[in-house]
């Protein structure tokens, strides 16, 4: 019963919450509590999915499919598979974390903030559960708006500029994505992902390969900007440095990477195959580039931005190896990074709340003052640098090992990132926590991690450990979905090369 | 001797072009307005010529309506021109360029 409408429920509970928030009076912490309640409710609902997921089944589950608009043929089609399953749960999990992280920082205009925050939740969940590409595109674009407005409203000092930059960077390629979508629709007569996939795999001959190639590229660029893949990352550090924590947590990574996996690999396997060498090179460059710049960053937010580029490039790398292991690793790494990266951003945020600066150079010796915080930083840092038995390792290892199997030299180069990430992360920890307390730290008495922050972070930290040691629980769902994809790509190569050969 | 239709058409085209050129050259708003009238009348000539050619009165009826409309336009136009003159004390069209870019 619930299974039939669970996805809609999950998607729109935040919207309903947002509407209620808009109507609530601005009194006390009422809006915060209500939003927390809604986000916890959403999270609880997302837990229904893994509980009732049919493991081992291929295809989509919890499907809902109703006609929405008859002409063009658009359906309200929702469904998840092993890839989106955990991403939906992840969004649910990060929700309460984000609310708690914003609890004190967002003091004014809470109504606007939480309204847009909840809208953003809907948009993100919508992206993951939509199986109609039109619907998907709707949520995809929708996710830009709350983000941009919140960055503008709550930016540090250059918020408006960062908001515009972010929007332009993501909106421009999305326009091309729309061209691609409509073009596909013109050919296939459907926006349904599954039908389009079938159509493309069965009628590959009837569509000019050249055109299909451009369409796949339009898709890829739109998604790559959102990841962001080097060198399309120009927006990330500005957005990270301006956005409120709750927004920076969710802005990068999952939407773009999920979309690449779902659409580029799902619809355009042979084109993905063609573009793979370039993407692998960019991913490896991204890993090293992000790490090297993070090494010399003084601003915590920009630091984490470049570290994010590095980490997400691992995912890109894993995708374009087209191995089951690598794709598993990618999705897993995605979960890990979103979790640990979010935790790190929150940690930076709560340090900022206390000392009022993101400049690492002004810190020093915090460990003796705030030992609990130091511990949380340490564990999160270790998770991010991929220490075994914490979550980061599993994903990275799977990605790198599968890359190495296919492209030994790129794999080896990417593995260098492991060294660099340790270098910059430890450098950050050292600057902030070790040494004699700096002037800033010594002159200001601040509380250690308080209960509210603990509620936001401790579950995340525990999850880091659990994800690190109990990966099969997650991967069994992921594996079912990605193995089909990997075979799809492998199969596509064969057909594509033969058609090319015939053409010549 | 019947004057060929083309003569009328060419004449009206020339008149129309003169109207256009006058619009571009003249500086006094009243003159510009007159040049518009010239263009409209060039069109009227065309209508009449075609009406004659097709033996259709509708073309001539059209002319009447155009004349009526031109009259209405003239009324409104002169009112606007007066408003312009009140705010600027000039009818030089080149001075009516407060809003630009």
């Amino acid at each position, binding site marked *: 019963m619930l299974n039939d409408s669970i996805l809609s429920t999950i998607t729109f509970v935040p919207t309903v919450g947002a509407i209620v928030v808009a109507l609530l009076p601005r009194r006390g912490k009422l809006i915060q509590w209500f939003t927390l309640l809604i986000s916890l409710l959403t999270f609880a609902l997302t837990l229904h999915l893994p509980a009732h997921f049919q493991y081992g089944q291929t295809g989509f589950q919890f499907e809902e499919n109703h006609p929405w608009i008859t002409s063009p043929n658009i359906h309200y089609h929702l469904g998840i598979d092993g890839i989106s399953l955990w991403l939906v749960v992840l969004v649910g999990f990060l929700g309460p974390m984000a609310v708690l992280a914003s609890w004190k920082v967002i003091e004014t205009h809470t109504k606007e903030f939480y309204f847009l925050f909840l809208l953003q939740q809907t948009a993100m969940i919508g992206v993951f559960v939509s199986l109609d590409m039109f619907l998907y595109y709707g949520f995809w674009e929708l996710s830009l708006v709350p983000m941009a407005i919140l960055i503008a409203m709550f930016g540090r000092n250059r918020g408006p500029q960062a908001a515009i930059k972010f929007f332009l960077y993501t909106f421009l390629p999305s326009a091309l994505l729309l061209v691609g979508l409509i073009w596909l629709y013109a050919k296939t007569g459907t926006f349904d992902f599954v039908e389009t996939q079938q159509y493309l795999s069965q009628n590959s001959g009837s569509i000019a390969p050249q055109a299909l190639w451009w369409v796949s590229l339009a898709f890829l660029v739109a998604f790559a900007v959102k990841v962001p893949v080097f060198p399309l990352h120009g927006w990330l550090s500005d957005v990270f440095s301006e956005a409120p924590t709750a927004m920076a947590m969710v802005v990068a990574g999952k939407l773009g990477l999920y979309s690449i996996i779902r659409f580029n690999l799902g619809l355009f396997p042979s084109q993905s195959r063609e573009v793979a060498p370039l993407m692998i090179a960019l991913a490896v460059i991204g890993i090293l580039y992000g790490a090297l*710049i993070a090494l010399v960053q003084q601003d915590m937010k920009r630091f984490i931005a470049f570290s994010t580029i590095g980490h997400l490039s691992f995912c890109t790398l894993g995708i374009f190896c087209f191995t089951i292991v690598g794709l598993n690793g990618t999705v897993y790494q995605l979960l890990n990074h979103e979790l640990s990266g979010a935790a790190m951003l929150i940690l930076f945020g709560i340090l900022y709340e206390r000392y009022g600066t993101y400049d690492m150079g002004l810190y020093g010796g915090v460990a003796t003052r705030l030992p609990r915080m130091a511990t949380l930083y340490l564990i999160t840092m270790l998770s991010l640098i991929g220490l075994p038995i914490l979550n980061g390792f599993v994903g990275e290892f799977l990605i790198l090992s599968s890359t190495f199997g296919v492209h030994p030299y790129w794999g080896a180069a990417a593995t260098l990132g492991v*060294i660099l990430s340790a270098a910059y992360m430890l450098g950050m920890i050292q600057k902030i926590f070790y040494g004699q307390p700096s002037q800033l730290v010594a002159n200001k008495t601040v509380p250690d991690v308080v209960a509210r922050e603990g509620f936001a972070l401790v579950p995340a930290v525990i999850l880091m450990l659990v994800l690190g040691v109990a990966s099969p629980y997650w*991967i069994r769902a992921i594996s079912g979905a990605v193995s089909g994809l*990997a075979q799809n790509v492998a199969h596509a190569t064969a057909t594509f090369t033969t058609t090319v050969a015939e053409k010549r | 001797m019947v004057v060929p239709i083309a003569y009328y058409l060419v004449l009206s085209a020339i008149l129309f072009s003169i109207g256009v050129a006058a619009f571009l050259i003249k500086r006094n708003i009243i003159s510009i307005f007159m040049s518009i009238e010239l263009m409209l009348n060039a069109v009227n000539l065309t209508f009449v010529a075609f009406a004659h050619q097709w033996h259709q009165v509708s073309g001539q009826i059209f002319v009447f309506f155009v004349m009526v409309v031109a009259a209405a336009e003239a009324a409104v136009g002169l009112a606007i021109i007066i408003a312009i003159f009140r705010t600027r004390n000039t009818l030089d069209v080149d001075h009516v360029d407060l809003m630009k*870019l």
Partner: protein
Amino acid sequence: MTSSLHLWLIPLVPFAGFLVNGLLGRRFPKALVTTVALIATLIPFVQVANIALHFSSLTLPYTEQVATWITAGNFHADFAFALDQLTLIMLLVVTGVGFLIHIYSVGYMAEEEGYWRFFAYLNLFMFFMLTLVLAENFLLMFVGWEGVGLASYLLIGFYLTKDSAANAGKKAFVVNRIGDFGFLLAMFLLIAHFGTLSFSEVFNQVAQHPEWQGGFLTAIALFLILGATGKSAQIPLYVWLPDAMEGPTPVSALIHAATMVTAGVYMVVRTHVIFDRSPFALSTIAVIGTATALFAATIGLVQTDIKRVLAYSTVSQLGYMFLACGVAAYSSGIFHLLTHAFFKALLFLSAGSVIHALSGEQDMRVMGGLRKKIPITFWTMTMAVFAISGFPPFAGFFSKDEILYQAFISPNGLGKILWFIGLFTAGLTSFYMFRLWYLTFFGESRAQATTAHDDHGHGHGHGVHESSWVMLTPLVILAILSGIGGWVGVPEAMGGHAEIAHFLSPVTGAAHEAAEGRSMELLLAAVSVTVAVIGWFIAHLMYFAKPALPAQLASKVRGLYSLLLNKYWVDELYGAVVVAPLLLISRYVLKGLFDTGVITGGGMAIGYSAQGLGALVQRVQSGNIRSYAGWLALGAAALLLLTYVGFGTHLLFR
């Protein structure tokens, strides 16, 4: 014996100790912290001892699969533990020495802030180290491998407010990561070629394919060597270990002498099946080991910080173990690992006792004359010095001699050279150890003027005093072990039974026997003892008989002296060649030029050019009605012209 040994308990009990102390230790009284930490170490020790007692009744190798860790596609890794002879020895060393050092720490760290934190970290280290040695596959071993690095990082940086400690911790971790990079690549290669990371499966496959020689196995082996050089502080990655002495002394003893740094040796021995197929890799290890041994020993000659001397000595001794592995004398390597664990732990703990006695002073130049003041420490230290210098019948003699002998008889063409360098290094070892001995314990105290202490946090009084019994007991036990520990490997040439070699032979294979036989072995032993004596004699001459001599000598060969004193400027070299360029490139080329210039600037350039076009478009809006009419007319003309001329062009755009 029951069917299950519950090996998983061995690492997990210390982990539980870590969790308890780590989460709650801040609020615990010290005694409770101590109890938890010691029990968490004692239980594994007892369990290991129990296993050791029943060892003969076990069917080996014994494996225990606890749970699946990762399974994706065709890749699979388990939480699986294995027990064999090699593991047992390592377990005994780790739990035994580990437990002793825990006890010692109770005394040594008694006054420190963050007592609970220290023990939590120590337990964490035990967890990872035991995981490392118990692991049945490469991946789980890597867990321990990285984990001990983490524990080491935390413990080196234990004194949070000390910048040098933080730097050293970071350096240790990062340099180790370079090694881990090798380990990772080795694992990737293993996966690519074997499809598994399980030791038994990999080794079985290798065994089934005698035709596999060199090739990818060499590649795997070389990457493993890179890993090992990181963890075991060999050239070129040894640089972190001397700096790691910033940590509390028990840490140096446990992690940076007895256990963690030997992980590289353990790993090579564990995977010797692969190395056996690659003479090149073996030679590489041997050369690295020998070079490191010599190199570190020469630096050790002139160091003045007591712990740094010991650190370089550790690097040097690890070089010996590598040499043993390089000549495929794995059991000899493990033998030396064992004895080294005893005497080097003892050396560090004794040095700790000295430092403790001097309230934190580590500079040997201001020591001296401590023999009478701290006699027990003096005697235990003496045992250790004799052991490491290779005097019979102390432990070091047998193991080091075994290695040199194996090098000498090695079929490897380099064997003799390696032997000679090893021998020379033995002399150097003897010299610098006795130098330490003399400087610390003999002569007059040079401490009066200068030991107005820099504050190392040892808030004792100023009087020199012997340590408490909680510290001395481990010293005594280790001293006994340093004395007799070598007797488990007395070679047959000297009337022993080489028990350890026989014990390990199911794992490592039988040791080499030379054609020349026992007389040769005895002769070589005599030579090395002689060399050790010469070293002692020179030290005696320079630091006891004629204390002015070292300074004269140093001024005579000033270049060489300063080269050694500055550790061959290797740190500076790495800094100038690797670190500085990397940072410079990152800061100026990547961040400054590329990210700001190309990425941000490119975006801005596009933005500005669009705005420029916009300005151009706006130029049309002159505000002048006549110009507007002109545009209209022009547009109309264009439109009419296009209509008239026709439109071949537009088709291009459809």
